[in-house]
């Protein structure tokens, strides 16, 4: 990645523009507190990975950025504006979304799936063109794939189609919820590489993205910054090397050691990202 990763320092974050912000967000589901006062800024063009165990609140935080989750307290800002003042449907049409297992509509062929957002945005005329271009972008031949049913695709192909669908309307923001979680190791590596290239190749600079993952290696590979969540609270936010060199808590240290991340990896990451 060519881009400089942004350190987590508050002075740096406020200097750049925040694309997405959570301000002391609280969310409860019945008795369970999923988010317990989480604040996080995602800068324009930045990729932030949300990591943590199941139930740590990472998916809830992701879903509060497109209004699928409404905070019980605190605010969510999109481009500096409170999400509750915005038309969430229009907002979502401007954000790409890739869930685990693709979430393709099984009764629509691949082509119709990818055309979804362009059509919702009223681009019926060139929805087909956009869909084909998007399929091309994720490495699928439109002619070969356009007329297939989702059930006829492999897991990797399904995720590529989901990615193409998320990108077809040219969003500036991309939300990904464990997009590569259900794939075998080789396919996953393949897709991770494609994704990194895709994100960087955006004409107006890299897309802003939030990536939920339970895989620290994936987070370090794809994200500029990593946010570690635990029991609905932010444990630490920082660049991969910051996390490795200065874990903020025993929990983060434990997480790293269980993922077999060593200080040697920090060197590799620095070199790779040109830090």
């Amino acid at each position: 990645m060519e881009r400089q990763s942004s350190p987590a320092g508050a002075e740096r974050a406020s200097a750049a523009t925040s694309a997405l912000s959570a301000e002391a967000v609280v969310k409860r589901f019945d008795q369970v507190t999923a988010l317990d006062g989480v604040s996080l800024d995602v800068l324009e063009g930045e990729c932030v990975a949300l990591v943590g165990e199941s139930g740590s609140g990472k998916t809830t935080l992701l879903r509060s950025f497109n209004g699928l989750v409404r905070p019980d307290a605190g605010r969510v800002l999109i481009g500096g504006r409170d999400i509750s003042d915005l038309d969430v449907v229009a907002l979502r049409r401007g954000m790409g979304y890739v869930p685990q297992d693709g979430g393709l509509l099984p009764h629509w062929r691949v082509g119709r799936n990818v055309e979804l957002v362009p059509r919702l945005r009223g681009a019926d005329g060139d929805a087909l063109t956009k869909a084909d271009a998007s399929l091309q972008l994720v490495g699928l031949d439109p002619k070969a794939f356009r007329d297939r049913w989702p059930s006829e695709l492999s897991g990797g192909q399904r995720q590529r189609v989901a990615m193409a669908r998320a990108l077809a309307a040219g969003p500036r923001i991309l939300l990904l919820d464990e997009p590569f979680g259900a794939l075998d190791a080789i396919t996953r590596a393949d897709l991770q590489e494609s994704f990194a290239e895709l994100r960087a190749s955006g004409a107006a600079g890299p897309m802003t993205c939030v990536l939920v993952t339970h895989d620290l290696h994936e987070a370090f590979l794809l994200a500029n910054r990593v946010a570690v969540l635990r029991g609905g609270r932010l444990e630490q936010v920082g660049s991969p090397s910051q996390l490795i060199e200065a874990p903020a808590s025993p929990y983060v240290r434990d997480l790293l050691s269980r993922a077999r991340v060593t200080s040697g990896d920090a060197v590799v990451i620095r070199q790779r990202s040109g830090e």
Partner: protein
Amino acid sequence: MIGRALLFALSLTAGSEQPPAGPAVVVASKPFGESYLLAEMFARLLEARGIAVDRRPGLGATELAFRALRAGSIDVYPEYTGTGLLVLLGERPSGDEKAVFDRVAQEFPRRFGVRWLPPLGFENTYAIAVRERMADSLGMQTLSDLARHAGTLRAGLTPDFIGRSDGLPGLSSAYGIRFRDVRALLPAVKYRALDAGDVDVVDGYSTDGLIARYHLRVLVDDRKFFPPYEAAALVSARLWSENPAAVAALTELSGRIDVARMRALNRRVEVDGVPIPRVASEALAELGLIRGAVATNKAERAASFASYVSSSASTLTSLTVRHLLLVGVSLAVAILVAVPLGLMLERHARAAEPVIRGVGVVQTLPGIALLAFMIPLFGIGLVPALVALALYSLYPIVRNTFTGVRDADPKAVDAARALGMTDGQILRQVRLPLAAPVIMAGIRTAAVIDVGTATLAAFIGAGGLGEPIVSGLALSDTRMILSGAIPAALLALVVDVTLAGVEHFVHPGR
């Protein structure tokens, strides 16, 4: 309004029933042989006096026929004074047959607005029958004798008799009869069960033609438990006040049919298998009420209560077409109501279970009971049958629509919402297509049940393949029963297979 439109549409397509010119007198019967025969005699006598007649044979049972008469959906049917007193007035029997007739003749106009014409001249009381050979070996002549042996005997009684106060409950307390075992048997099978030795005692009617077919003994009611059941025409308020000519014609039969004649007529129908229209014509001719014995064959069939007897393919075809219409229209109405209701409930999840359970309660009502509820609202014939069948079909469709839409691939629904589809778009473009196979399965279930339930429509004069079944049950004629039951079963199979094809077709994303 809708009812009329439906009726009109159906009469266009069904075409088998031509409404007679002018206000026809609607003549009905209950579903057993003697009632069919008496009603046919009423009808033929009226026609002979130049009065147009509309026939509604085999209406459910006492409750159905009487409700239809009170509602003015029918004008006349043969009833029994004892039944009127006990079942309809809910009073205990008192005194002789004259006292019973006077009581009902006085109370019915006041309470229900309907009137009894003078009795026809015979009594048809309950008859408790046993095998002659067994009666001899046990030395049984009377019901008191029966009471001594009841503990070792098995009874096969009609459901009607088991429930009525003038049936088993009263009989048990009057004679102290306690059977070893009591089974509910339909009239069609009870004599055969008795003959085969599966049961030892059955209930029948004293004028039953079938008692002669098997070697049976009717036990004497030595304590005079059964009240007098004199047969008479029961007529609607409207007929009484507006059609004196018809009332006069029907009164011509009063006092003319004695018990021997009635038993002989019943035997001709039930034992000899002579068509009812012919027996009715001959009886009227013998009584000197009409000229010329037998109507021509063609006219007979056209006006016949027993057109099902004809095994011609055209009869089967028209019954099947009628049946399909009953099923098709009621199912279409059910779909139009149930699918939107199911979709609405998906949006109001809290109301869903109570509402669906409420719809399910309809399903638990016995078909006859539901039909009975329909009569005060819609009369008899097609409309109440269609309403009842549609109500019966709601449950599986509402249930499947609701669960199908609610449980539609949650990941796909979530992705659709996250990518900016509105709730309406999600419902129409995602949930509904994904739920289509489940909804279709519900429709298929409803359709197959509907084909079976529609046979009950014959009990309220709506026709269909139930007609030969109802008549066959009444006349204890297995062939006639099968002539309706087999096509109905085949129809259910065909409907199931056809809809399975549709279900396969609507399956998304193959």
